[in-house]
């Protein structure tokens, strides 16, 4: 995975059937990138359902969550509607897995993203990363601790 301290590579991917999102649009906010293998599979569903409940905790830290998998935009749309997700799912679909490769979290054998998390600061620098065993839902405690630490560091700097 890309190491903390690295600038997060820029990308643009479809978030809805007719709208692309670029990472640079989030400048000034922290960003949580959640790469995951596939819509609909049981563990991913749990993970995304959990993150859906976590959004207000993330927003307390000025952080936006983005999910990324190789599923197509129409698949994401259906998954998102069915699970009532309130954060964007990006389609790393064509060329397949290009962004996951850029972030060193593409599983060549199965042709899916690994289950991996990055937390970026307001300047787009990677501050925390985590690679989860593919069958395990990584929860949200690690993300929350990373966000808190980033805010603590900033508070100390201002003092």
């Amino acid at each position, binding site marked *: 995975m890309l190491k903390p301290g690295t600038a997060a590579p820029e990308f643009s991917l479809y978030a809805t059937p007719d709208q692309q999102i670029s990472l640079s649009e989030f400048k000034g906010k922290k960003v949580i990138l959640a790469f995951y293998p596939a819509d609909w599979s049981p563990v991913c569903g749990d993970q995304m*359902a*959990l993150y*859906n*409940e976590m959004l207000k*905790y993330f927003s307390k830290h000025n952080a936006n969550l983005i999910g990324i998998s190789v599923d197509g935009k129409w698949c994401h749309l259906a998954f998102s509607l069915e699970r009532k*997700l309130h954060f964007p799912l990006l389609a790393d679909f064509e060329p397949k897995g290009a962004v996951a490769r850029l972030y060193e979290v593409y599983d060549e054998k199965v042709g899916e993203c690994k289950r991996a998390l990055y937390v970026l600061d307001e300047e787009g620098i990677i501050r925390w990363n985590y690679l989860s065993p593919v069958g395990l*839902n990584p*929860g*949200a*405690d690690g993300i929350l601790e990373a966000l808190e630490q980033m805010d603590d560091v900033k508070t100390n700097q201002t003092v």
Partner: protein
Amino acid sequence: MPLKPPVNEVDHCQGDKAAKIVIVEYGDYQCPHCGRAYPLVKKLQAELGEDLCFVFRNFPLAKIHPDAMMAAIATEAAALQGKYWEMHDILFENQENLDNDALARYAQRLEMDVEKFSSDIADQQFISKVESDFESGIRSGVNATPTFFINGEKYNNGWEGNRILDFIRANDLI
């Protein structure tokens, strides 16, 4: 991963907090897996008797389970009338019906003061109690429901059948 915060005075406990085994469940009243775990917990309580203290903390996934938050609040309102565990049981035994009318019917069935119950469940203070349960779950690494903690540590070995009891015996916890 440790339970944060440890079992304390705001928790609802069945049994003595000083028991040999303290099990904490993070659960959601509208979650079908929690519904399947419910009789297994009852069985565990019957098997372990006084050696077990059982604690339930709320972890409602409210966006996929629209009635889960209100159901959790109903148990807190029932606690005010000394009926926390009675309400807990009735909700898990009637998971398919957890709308507000149903909650009021259960309060009536438990011979609670229904008028007080109905005004209590509109009270904001219970939302923050449920949310603080949820937040403690996140901090403790809860990633799905139900998640169990045994004597303060997250338990990851599966809860189906007799697995929890087998784990307790295999590790000489009693």
